[in-house]
């Protein structure tokens, strides 16, 4: 109760029935308060400013302790009774009414009800009714009006009182004249009284004294308390006050009395109005948009009275036919002939045809129970008439359209439905797929088993297939680290736990192993791969036998270890047997190889040249005989890999062929079998010549002489090898070793290197030695090339030919070679001159061309003149401090780039440019668009008359004097339904 004690003057703040509420927090000094006139103290303006604030504050307070307030209210009312004393009755009544109103509040009844009950009460307890009823009625009516007005206007309670007074003055002058001064007097008195009382009884009723200071409705109405119908007025006023009272007591229960809201600011209201107006207007205007769009899109606006008349009068085939009349003799004759033939009328003709058709149909349909029309001619006639012209005489166009539309709709619906179903049917669950797959597999297995039991030969096929699958799996390397799991593990890095890491490494190892297997299989099973062929098999066997013969001297076999075979006769017998076998094998080999050679010889020549494409067919003999070749025919194999000569010219020849040298005895007739050379630039520079073996061998096989005694050759060649003058750095042993290495077919890189290095040849010498022996035309060309490279004079010439010097001489055609050789100086001069001019032109047009300017002028920053020390070099600035270097501007591409015999002048044609546009004109956004827009000719020369007219039609066609109406608004056309 600190509040109460401290602010005794404003103690009425707790009591809310008064219209003027003064907040305890916003209090003013008592002295100030007294000086201010009540009417002005809290006028409507103040209300506008602070009213809401009070409301909210009171509300919040109310919510806190509504019960307390009620109690206090009651106690205060009582205290009022005690204090005032003078109008005891009234105050009592007031108390009563207050009680009743509070009771109303408790019962949560409507205001109206309470008011009406009040009315009833008034009538029943009309204790003060000294005046006539009519007067009483009048006064009540007046007060009600007043109230209504109050409700309507609600200009604030303080002003309420004023308006109250005014109303009273205007409508009922008598009352106001009588009572207002009295009220004023009373007010003054009471004020005074209250002050004195408060002075006197300060101790007695500390908190409640201040209440009397304030102007209350009750105190105002004191003046009219003796008038007729006062009770009603008081009651109704009470309703008002309780309304405010109840706002403090029970929010929302009874009708609130509200102040007039502050009108919204002009800006806001105008904005709102603009918005609304805009919406309305735009809606209104949009009715024209359709027609505007149409007009805008229209090519021509035709305002002529009968537009499109030209189209109707245009001659068409149909028009001509319909107007046709036989006029000339010939036409008449024709018409007559047609008449005779019965074709005068198309309708008749059609009818006849139909009849004929129907007659046939009738016969056909007779079996189906179709009643034939032969019996009733009239009926058929009528039907014919009905059915002619596709029955168009039976249904109207609208009907037809309607029917067609329906049909189309149905069809569309069906179509959509079908599409939908089709899609949905396709969607199947994962599980379904899984099951289906398993099912399929099982079925397939069963089938296969059944097939196997029926036909055991299929087993092999199956095995092969399985093998293939396995191979494919290996090839694709399912164990690579590309699976989702592996990738995830790898990404996680070291965070992976040991288990998973191990799994991964295991997988890696597996993958590696498989990969190795694949490689190994290729090497190891090379023989097997090709052994499918029976002939190959035989061949191999024969060779094996032969090989064995060669080998068996040094290599002890199992048989030899056996004691039985150690016996002399056994040995001899075996020897004989072996010889026989050998003989047979040789014969067989001869035969087979002869066959093979015949087949291959035709293309062997080409093949040897096409080293890039080691044809698959040739791999067979190679693979079959590679190992054997090495052993049987250890030839003077010569590998010169990536040998560079003619260093300056920038192209090299790598010789990757075998050069076989025969014994000196045969040296005259012997020659180079092969001299394969190729351009380095080709990029095939492997440096290894393994593939060459086979081609060489093939050639050998072609020659019967060679194949007759391969073993004999072995020796000679072997001997020869050491003497080979071509080979500069090599030892016999190492060579053999290398060869053997290769025979074992381990194609490791190191071995390759060895081979190539050991067989490196000085080609330059070799070439000079070869000169005499070479007979082959092809090799001659090669030699020529070799020579050309070495000889300077040719080099000079080739240098002159700027472009062609990049190519090898051998690549040039015969004609080009001749041309080059006999190029006249005039030719070259012309070309040179042309090139010079082109360069000049290029330079002139090149915007990036910069004159070589010496940035450092001597004497600038250093001494110049005679005897001056040499100028200092510019200081080197560290790269950090240096200004960033400008990017070298790239010269724009010229049209004649890459055309050696063309100069296209890129100079802008000033005069022609005036007929061109500098920029793309407005509506178009790209050059292509613009060019498309102006493409095509619209003149008469290129079009039909109709076309030319159409394309050059003016945008607006109008007769002079025609009044053009403004555009009418048009409903937005709906999109037409889809047609099917």
């Amino acid at each position, binding site marked *: 109760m600190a509040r109460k004690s401290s602010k005794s003057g404003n103690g009425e703040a707790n009591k809310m029935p008064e219209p003027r509420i003064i907040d305890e927090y916003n209090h003013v000094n008592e002295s100030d308060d007294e000086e201010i006139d009540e009417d002005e103290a809290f006028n409507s303006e103040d209300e506008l400013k602070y009213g809401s604030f009070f409301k909210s504050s009171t509300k919040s307070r109310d919510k806190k302790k509504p019960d307390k307030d009620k109690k206090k209210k009651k106690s205060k009312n009582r205290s009022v009774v005690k204090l005032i004393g003078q109008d005891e009755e009234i105050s009592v009544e007031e108390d009563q009414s207050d009680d009743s109103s509070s009771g109303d509040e408790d019962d949560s009844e409507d205001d109206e009800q309470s008011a009406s009950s009040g009315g009833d009460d008034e009538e029943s307890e009309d204790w003060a009714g000294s005046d006539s009823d009519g007067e009483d009625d009048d006064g009540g009516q007046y007060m009600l009006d007043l109230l209504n007005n109050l409700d309507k206007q609600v200009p604030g309670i303080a002003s309420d009182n004023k308006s109250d007074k005014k109303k009273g003055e205007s409508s009922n002058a008598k009352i106001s004249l009588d009572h207002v001064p009295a009220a004023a007097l009373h007010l003054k008195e009471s004020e005074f009284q209250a002050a004195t009382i408060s002075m006197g009884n300060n101790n007695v009723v500390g908190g409640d004294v201040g209440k009397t200071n304030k102007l209350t409705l009750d105190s105002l109405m004191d003046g009219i308390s003796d008038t007729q119908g006062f009770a009603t007025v008081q009651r109704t006023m009470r309703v008002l006050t309780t309304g405010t009272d109840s706002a403090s007591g029970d929010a929302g229960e009874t009708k609130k009395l509200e102040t007039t809201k502050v009108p919204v600011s002009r800006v806001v209201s105008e904005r709102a109005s603009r918005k609304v107006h805009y919406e309305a207007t735009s809606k209104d205007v949009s009715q024209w948009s359709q027609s505007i769009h149409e007009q*805008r*899109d229209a*090519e021509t606006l035709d305002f002529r009275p009968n537009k499109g008349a030209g189209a109707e009068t245009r001659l068409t085939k149909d028009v001509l036919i319909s107007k046709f009349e036989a006029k000339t003799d010939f036409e008449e004759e024709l018409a007559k002939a047609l008449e005779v033939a019965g074709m005068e009328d198309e309708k008749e003709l059609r009818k006849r045809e139909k009849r004929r058709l129907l007659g046939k149909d009738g016969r056909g349909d007779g079996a189906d129970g179709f009643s034939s029309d032969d019996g009733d001619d009239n009926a058929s006639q009528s039907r014919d008439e009905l059915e002619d012209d596709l029955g168009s005489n039976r249904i109207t166009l609208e009907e037809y359209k309607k029917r067609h539309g329906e049909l189309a709709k149905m069809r569309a619906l069906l179509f959509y439905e079908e599409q939908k179903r089709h899609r949905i049917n396709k969607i199947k669950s994962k599980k379904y797929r899984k099951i289906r797959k398993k099912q399929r597999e099982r079925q397939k297995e069963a089938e296969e088993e059944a097939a196997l039991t029926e036909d055991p030969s299929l087993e092999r096929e199956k095995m092969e297939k399985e093998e293939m699958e396995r191979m494919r799996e290996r090839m694709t390397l399912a164990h690579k680290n590309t699976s989702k799991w592996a990738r995830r593990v790898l990404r996680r890095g070291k965070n992976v736990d040991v288990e998973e890491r191990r799994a991964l490494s295991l997988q890696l190892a597996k993958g590696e192993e498989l990969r190795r297997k694949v490689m190994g299989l290729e090497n190891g099973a090379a023989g097997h791969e090709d052994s499918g062929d029976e002939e190959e098999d035989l061949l191999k066997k024969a060779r094996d036998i032969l090989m064995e013969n060669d080998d068996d001297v040094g290599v002890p076999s199992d048989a030899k270890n056996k004691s039985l075979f150690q016996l002399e006769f056994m040995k001899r017998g075996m020897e004989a047997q072996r010889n026989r076998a050998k003989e047979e094998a040789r014969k067989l080999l001869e035969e087979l190889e002869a066959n093979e050679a015949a087949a291959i010889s035709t293309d062997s020549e080409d093949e040897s040249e096409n080293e890039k494409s080691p044809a698959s067919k040739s791999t067979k003999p190679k693979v079959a005989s590679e190992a054997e070749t090495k052993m049987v025919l250890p030839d003077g194999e010569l590998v010169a890999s990536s040998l560079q000569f003619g260093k300056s010219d920038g192209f090299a020849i790598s010789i990757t062929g075998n050069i076989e040298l025969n014994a000196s005895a045969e040296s005259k007739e012997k020659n180079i079998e092969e001299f394969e050379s190729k351009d380095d630039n080709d990029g095939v520079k492997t440096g290894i010549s393994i593939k060459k073996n086979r081609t060489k061998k093939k050639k050998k096989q072609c020659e019967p002489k060679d194949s007759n005694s391969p073993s004999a050759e072995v020796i000679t060649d072997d001997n020869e090898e050491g003497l080979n003058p071509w080979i500069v750095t090599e030892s016999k042993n190492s060579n053999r070793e290398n060869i053997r290495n290769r025979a074992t077919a381990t194609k490791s890189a190191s071995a390759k290197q060895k081979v190539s290095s050991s067989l490196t040849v000085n080609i330059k010498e070799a070439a000079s030695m070869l000169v005499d022996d070479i007979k082959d035309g092809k090799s001659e060309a090669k030699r020529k090339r070799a020579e050309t490279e070495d000889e300077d004079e040719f080099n000079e010439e080739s240098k002159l030919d700027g472009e062609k010097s990049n190519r090898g001489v051998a690549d040039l055609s015969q004609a080009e070679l001749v041309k080059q050789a006999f190029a*006249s100086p*005039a*030719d*070259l*001069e*012309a*070309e040179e*001159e*042309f090139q010079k*001019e082109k360069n000049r032109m290029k330079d002139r*047009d*090149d*915007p990036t061309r910069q004159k070589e300017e010496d940035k450092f002028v001597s004497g600038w920053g250093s001494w110049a003149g005679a005897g001056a020390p040499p100028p200092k070099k510019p200081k080197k600035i560290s790269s950090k401090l240096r200004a960033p270097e400008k990017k070298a501007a790239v010269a*724009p591409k010229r049209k*004649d780039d890459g*055309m050696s*015999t*063309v*100069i*296209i*002048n*890129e*100079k*802008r*044609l*000033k*005069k*022609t*440019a*005036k*007929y*061109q*546009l*500098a*920029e*793309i004109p407005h*509506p*178009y*956004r790209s*050059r292509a*668009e*613009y*060019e*498309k*827009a*102006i*493409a*095509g000719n619209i003149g*008469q*020369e*290129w*079009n*039909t008359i*109709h*076309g030319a007219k*159409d*394309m050059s039609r003016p945008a607006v066609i109008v007769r002079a004097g025609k009044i053009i109406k403004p555009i009418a608004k048009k409903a937005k056309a709906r999109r037409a339904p889809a047609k099917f």
Partner: protein
Amino acid sequence: AFRKRNAKPNKSLERQMARKETKRLEHAVAASDAQEILHVHAAGLVEAEHDMEKTVQLTQQKLKREFLEEVNARNIYDLELDAGNGPYKLAYDRSGKFSLLAGRGRQGHVAVVDQHTLALQTEFYVKEPIRDACFLHDGSMMALAQERKVFIYDKDGVEIHRLDKHSRVFGMQFLPYHWLLATVGHSGMLQYQDTSTGELISQHRTKLGPCHVMRQNPFNSVIHLGHTNGTVTLWSPSSSEYLVKLLCHKGNPITSLAIDRNGRYMATGGGDSKVKIWDLRTYKELHSYATYGGPPTSLDISQTGILGVGHGCHATFWKPDALSQKLKEPYMKHTLPGKGPLESLRFRPFEDVCGLGHARGIASIVVPGSGEPNLDSMEHFTNPYMDNRQRREAEVRSLLEKLSPDMIALDPDVIGSVEESNSILRRQRLRDLAEEADARKEAERDMEKNKKEKKRMRGRSKIAKKLQRKQKNIVDDNVNKLREAREREKAEKERAR
């Protein structure tokens, strides 16, 4: 200048363009349909019936005797003229009605022959060797490049103009759509003269010495010059430098040139006895044909694309396919033994006839399929049957439709298009604009400088005063009397002294 790349689509424009495109296509189809109706004739080539027969073996005599009708057969003739007047240059007008014969002999024999009636229209001697001759816009005017100057004569042989600026001309071409006479000659100066206004449009120095070979590209009116160093240069009046330079025959002079009607192929004959075919879109050599009996002295491509080559005393004709691909053997052949190198070989427009100007006169032969079978009546001066009224009409219309010489460019479609732009051209454009602005300023300054000062004194030039002033100087009897009187007085005064 800056334009957004991804500007939002302009639907209205797109609709408009789409509609335009459909319209254009529709009309194109209609036009082609109409053409099918109108162009009923097709150019037919002679075809061999079996493998053993070859069209090359077909001689003119055989053709005349066995295959041709009377009307066509009379186009086969050999006109022998005085030996001293040859060799003869031959030219046809655009309609193919008239032929112009010009002898290179000292007499300067000129004749115009009506090819329909084979009647001699005009014949005269200019008493000077004639280097080249051509008709102007139609058969009624011709230009002759004589020893020193170029002269223009009318159909009756009356000299109309002498073009003094064109001296020692070796080659002439008339550009019908621009009304330009282009000449080149001993000085290697290419000159364009407007024959409708008489203005010398431009002169370009080729800097490549005397030039004998000149042809126009009928497609874009660009002039092709063949030079002695084996290059061919392309020129337009709007550029003082060549547009394109091709090195066609290295180290050998260009002897002749021909360009096909569509401007796609060019055939060049060089001193190396080769005829090379070039694609003028890519400027690449497609293939070449070798000639025998001498280098190709004259080349021509007919309206249908038949390539005629005059080499030595032979004329060889190749099918239209010979331009696009290399053919093994020619279509037809004709030999004029002993009549020396063919001076000129020209196809007659709209007829299957080829005229050969040789040392001793002219010959006319029939090459089936060489002439365009369908006339285009919209094209001025190409109707061989036009009457006088039509001719007059065509003259006026053609003058009205005359194109500006500046419109000649390699690609005729550039007119009205947006200028090409790359860094080089942009720079040049800016420079040109600056130059233009400078020139304008200069001109304005000159104008101001040369402006005549207005005479400020009033009343002086009034007509009455002028007359008065004139009256002052008139010497008549009265003045004489006065003068005499004054002199007498003077004499008396002296005597008095």
